[in-house]
């Protein structure tokens, strides 16, 4: 039996030692180490610094940022696109793996779904940070008021707010519903305040046959619903740019290009998160090299897709030589050359050859190299999309370059720390591994002998049920 379990008689879950499995998968919830306190302390301190700097910016105005005429969007918007992009793969991968009954999915699900929820939270606050007079954010809400203010539904920014809200609510619901059986498990295994806490959150789930059947239907429906929402969210984020007649932005390819880029960076994010979880909670027997190998193959495919999209976009502009657009692309070879090279090298030159090698995909330290490289490369790509188009906007007399100030770097460091802090708190109080999914896989798994080899066989119960129906 795979997954670090040993076959033995005694129960229906492939003879797995349940107590050992629970301890192994719930280590993060049961034991609090000094490393956890240190991590929370550091992340909390950086977040606090980010909040202080943000308050300073709110007090003295946006002039302390690097924004200038005509570059009114910069690091904040690039970060918004980056964080929303990172959010893409968590829920999307989880939903696709659930729908396709991928047998290796179980250990990846929860960590990926949590990543989506928290990156969306971080991405969702960035427009408020960028707003300027932040305390008047409620002006954007649709409620009758004496100022006759009402959001403009024709604006892509409004679509963005709707889409991100829907995706955030959907992702949180998807994450929560997926956790209910595990919360019921923690309720039954804990005592004191923890028991009360998990009792409230598990909503009275017991695991009766009728509950499990409906739970499965609900999970499948969530997975079906969340996929088109995920695709729409990043399409709409791309339309924030593509709907404007700005050279470099106004492109029909932007929506699929953004979606591909988002999935690309998202998978890299999932690999990094999985590696950290594996190390921090000693999940080596559950998160095996096979999981990283599979994610690595996906990442390799996305590297090619991203390269294909980027080349297609570049080729049409290069061949057409429309002066306004060509000026933007030319700046990639001038002031923005370091950013451009970072993007190409980190998104393609490093990851593609590395990810072609099985040895790299199956080695956790090695696969982290292309994963970190892609995250850096995609951040550079987001900056390259946002800034040069504004810096080289139609009229040459207003051209200006942009470089972020310490204020923007500090606030965005705070945003990154917020993600880390939220994730660490989640991993402390909630089951970071989808325990019931892992158990379900053990239930369906059996060893089969083919000639001289013993291989794992998985019963496809759902398919049998459909056939019977």
């Amino acid at each position, binding site marked *: 039996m795979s997954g670090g379990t040993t076959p033995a008689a005694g*129960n229906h879950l492939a003879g797995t030692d349940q107590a050992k499995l629970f301890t192994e998968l719930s280590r993060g919830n049961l034991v609090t180490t000094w490393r956890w306190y240190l991590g929370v302390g550091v992340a909390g301190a950086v977040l606090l610094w980010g909040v202080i700097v943000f308050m300073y910016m709110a007090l003295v105005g946006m002039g302390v940022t690097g924004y200038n005429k005509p570059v009114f969007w910069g690091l904040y918007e690039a970060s918004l696109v980056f964080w929303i992009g990172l959010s893409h793969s968590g829920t999307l991968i989880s939903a696709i793996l659930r729908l396709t009954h991928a047998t290796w999915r179980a250990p990846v699900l929860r960590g990926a779904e949590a990543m989506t929820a928290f990156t969306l939270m971080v991405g969702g606050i960035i427009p408020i940070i960028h707003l300027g007079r932040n305390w008047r954010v409620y002006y954007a809400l649709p409620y009758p008021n004496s100022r006759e203010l009402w959001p403009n539904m024709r604006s892509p920014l409004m679509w963005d707010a709707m889409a991100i809200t829907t995706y955030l609510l959907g992702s949180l619901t998807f994450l929560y519903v997926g956790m209910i059986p595990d919360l019921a498990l923690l309720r039954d*295994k804990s005592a004191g305040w923890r028991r009360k806490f998990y009792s409230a959150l598990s909503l009275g789930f017991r*695991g*009766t046959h009728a509950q499990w059947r409906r739970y499965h239907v609900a999970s499948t*429906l969530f997975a079906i619903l969340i996929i088109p929402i995920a695709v729409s969210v990043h399409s709409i984020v791309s339309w924030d740019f593509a709907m404007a007649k700005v050279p470099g932005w106004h492109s029909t390819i932007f929506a699929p290009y953004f979606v591909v880029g988002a999935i690309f960076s998202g998978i890299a994010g999932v690999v990094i998160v999985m590696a950290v979880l594996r190390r921090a909670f000693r999940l080596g027997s559950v998160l095996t090299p096979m999981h990283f190998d599979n994610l690595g193959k996906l990442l390799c495919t996305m590297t090619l897709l991203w390269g294909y999209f980027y080349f297609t976009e570049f080729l049409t502009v290069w061949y057409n030589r429309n002066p306004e657009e060509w000026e933007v692309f030319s700046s990639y070879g001038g002031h923005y050359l370091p950013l451009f090279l970072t993007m190409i090298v980190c998104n393609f030159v490093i990851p593609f050859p590395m990810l072609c090698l099985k040895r790299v995909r199956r080695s956790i330290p090695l696969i982290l190299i292309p994963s970190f490289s892609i995250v850096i490369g995609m951040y550079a790509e987001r900056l390259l999309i946002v800034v040069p188009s504004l810096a080289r906007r139609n009229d040459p007399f207003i051209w200006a370059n942009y470089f972020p100030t310490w204020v923007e770097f500090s606030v965005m460091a705070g945003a990154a720390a917020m993600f880390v802090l939220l994730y660490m708190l989640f991993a402390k109080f909630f089951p970071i591994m989808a325990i*019931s999914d892992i158990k379900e896989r053990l239930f369906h798994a059996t060893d089969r002998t083919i000639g001289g080899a013993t291989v794992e066989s998985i019963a496809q119960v759902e398919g049998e049920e459909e056939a019977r129906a």
Partner: protein
Amino acid sequence: MSTVIVGLFDGVETAARASRALRDLSLPAGSVTTISAVPLPEGAVVTDPQPIRFPRIVIAGWFVGAAAGLGLTLATYLLYPLVTGGKTIVSIPPTLIITYEVAMLGALLATLFGGGREMRLLRYPPKVIHDPRIHDGKIALCARVEGDEQARRAIVAMQGAGGTDVRAEKGEL
């Protein structure tokens, strides 16, 4: 509160054997169920006689969301018209986008509430039948019985099939 006979089983086969023995007692449909840490395939031990209806609520939720999104955009156009030369007051593409997003939100919320309702979540009767040992790899087979004779026969059936800690409990199944 009804009387429920609960027995613990190590595997699906023994639980299924007990379930077959319980059929001879002519218990009403839905009186026998399992409580387990993993979902057991339909028919492996027991069958669920109740149809799953909440996907219909999801479709209804989608339409309610679509109506809300459409209403929001149309009301915005009509109450706060943006008069721009050569442009219509009511713009179709943004309407489609907002309608789609709110419709999907409606469907998601309907899945959450419909699914929760059918799973009988957030219901806390004074005493429910449960056994935490399911998390140690056991399957709890539960049969709601009426009268002492039926209870005795159910206990015998479960014990005969290899059930351990077979007992009668008062509570909601």
